């Protein structure tokens, strides 16, 4: 029984990146889902929802695996608690994407013509923010390689700033869609309520993406 061979645990870095890939893939599916909805293609919407469900389960599986491989006796390059917190935010992206798909499909919602283009703009920007967060998490192994110091940190900080800018863009776009929604509330009736929820959720994914970045920035700041 070699002491050396038993010294090394499984690094959570690669599983974290895999989890983020699955979570962001969930977010990415939201755009075609709404495009099909605009086109009025209900069967296609249902199919997208199934795909998102599958990806969300995949993300959950990876999440549980990471958690079970991070017992307290492990000494990590990244503080355990910080790592788990980032994992939670990543997972929220997948969860919210699943909620959105569920609501959209279950209620058989239709995108009001007046909202369509502004809403899809918002979705696109949100997906971009999520993808930026994915790129940030992709740098995690390089951060570990350089020991969270120096140029690599500066590089990642820049990426996180870009992520923040994207997130504030989504705030503006969200407001635009909401204003349009105010104007057609009476027309939509009870559906208006669900649209508020959908818009809120979609924008929420960008919030989680930003939190992933911000939490990572706290790690590199010390």
């Amino acid at each position: 029984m070699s002491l050396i061979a038993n010294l090394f645990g499984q690094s959570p870095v690669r599983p974290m990146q895999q989890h983020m890939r699955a979570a962001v893939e969930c977010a990415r599916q939201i755009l075609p889902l709404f495009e099909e909805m605009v086109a009025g293609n209900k069967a296609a919407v249902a199919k997208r929802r199934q795909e998102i469900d599958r990806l969300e389960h995949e993300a959950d599986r990876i999440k549980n695996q990471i958690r079970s491989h991070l017992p307290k006796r492990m000494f990590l390059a990244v503080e355990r608690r910080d790592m788990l917190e980032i994992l939670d935010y990543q997972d929220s992206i997948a969860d919210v994407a699943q909620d959105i798909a569920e609501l959209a499909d279950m209620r058989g919602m239709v995108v009001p013509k007046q909202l369509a283009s502004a809403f899809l703009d918002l979705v696109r920007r949100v997906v971009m923010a999520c993808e930026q967060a994915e790129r940030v998490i992709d740098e995690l192994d390089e951060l570990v390689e350089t020991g969270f110091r120096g140029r690599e940190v500066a590089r990642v900080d820049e990426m996180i700033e870009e992520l923040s800018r994207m997130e504030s863009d989504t705030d503006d776009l969200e407001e635009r869609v909401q204003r349009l929604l105010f104007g057609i509330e009476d027309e939509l009736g009870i559906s208006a309520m669900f649209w508020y929820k959908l818009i809120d959720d979609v924008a929420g994914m960008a919030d989680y993406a930003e939190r992933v970045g911000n939490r990572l920035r706290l790690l590199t700041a010390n």
Partner: protein
Amino acid sequence: MILWLAGGLAMYMAWAIGANDVANAMGTSVGSGALTIRRAVVVAAVLEFSGALFVGGHVTDTVRKGMLDMELVQADPQLLLYGMLGALAAAATLLAVATAYGLPISTTHSIVGAIIGFGAVALGVDAVNWSKVAQIVVSWVTSPLIGGVLAFLTFNLVRRLILDRDDPFEAARRAGPFFFFFVTFVITLVTLFKGLQNLDLDYDLSGALIRALGAGVIGGGFGWWVIHRVKRASAGTNDRRFAGVERIFMVLQIMTACAVAFAHGSNDVANSIGPLAAIAAVVRDADLSQKAPVEIWMLAIGGIGIVFGLATWGYRVMETVGRKITELTPSRGFSAELAAALTIVLASRLGIPVSTTHILVGSVLGVGLARGIGALDLRVVGRILVSWVASLPIAATLSIFFFYFFKGLLS
């Protein structure tokens, strides 16, 4: 007859050391694909043997006569013979049982515990050189700590000089030969400076310095030549930015793995040859407290035993260890091994028997503290404590038992 029995037990110890422990030095390079198993075995064999031959005498001296009061022993040398035979038998038994049940046992701790055991009980508490024993036991705590601190500093240096640069590949290419120079220089200096009396080579500081500088320059030049043959990784995807640097570190890591193999041979050969040397002296009726250094052929026998263990069994262990430590990338492996090798060689030169495995663990933890390794299982620290408890008292008890057994049988 007694000499044959002692020789057999010593060879078994050397064989087991070669079979189990050499993997710790070379496993990293095998795991990262820097060396094939066959090459790793050949390289390790040469360096283990050289380490045993050139530096192994100091620790062997400590084991054969440093821990017991030889003036007291001189009154009845036969007791030393039974005791050392008992110590060998105890350590060998413990090693065999531990290997069968997968327990982490330190051969160093076993043999030291065994000698203290029969010394204190059979020869009397006063016969044990307690200040020397205390020095050894303290070193078992301090040596992994020193390895850890050195590794922490080395890794931070690697980070500052190489990883943190605009062009880490170029930086590694420039710094690499200096690391080659440094390691060759230090190890040669430690080996040469008043260290080779048994080869009739006695260098004072300036003589050793000049030769070490020469060796360092040759080592550095060789390093430069090897490193400059490493091709830059095709500038491609983002993910491979550090791939080229790690390829250079693979070369550096082979060098430090060699240093660890040399260091390991220089320290652990004493665990098998130390008691044998004491027994041989009694059998040939020599003056036990003699100042004469350990004979070179004995060290050679120990070296051959280690190499034999490596060739017959060690390569398998190497493969297993290599597969399990892929998380140790070459830059980290380099930092940990550099620190471990220097710590061990220094201990060997000072004649202190230390556990090479514990020092290597300390060094890896040092790199981990510098946030260099994804995940380290801290249970290993507990296992080291267990190995202390399992090795020391049990080896001591067993050796007392074997002492009376051999005394009854042979006198």
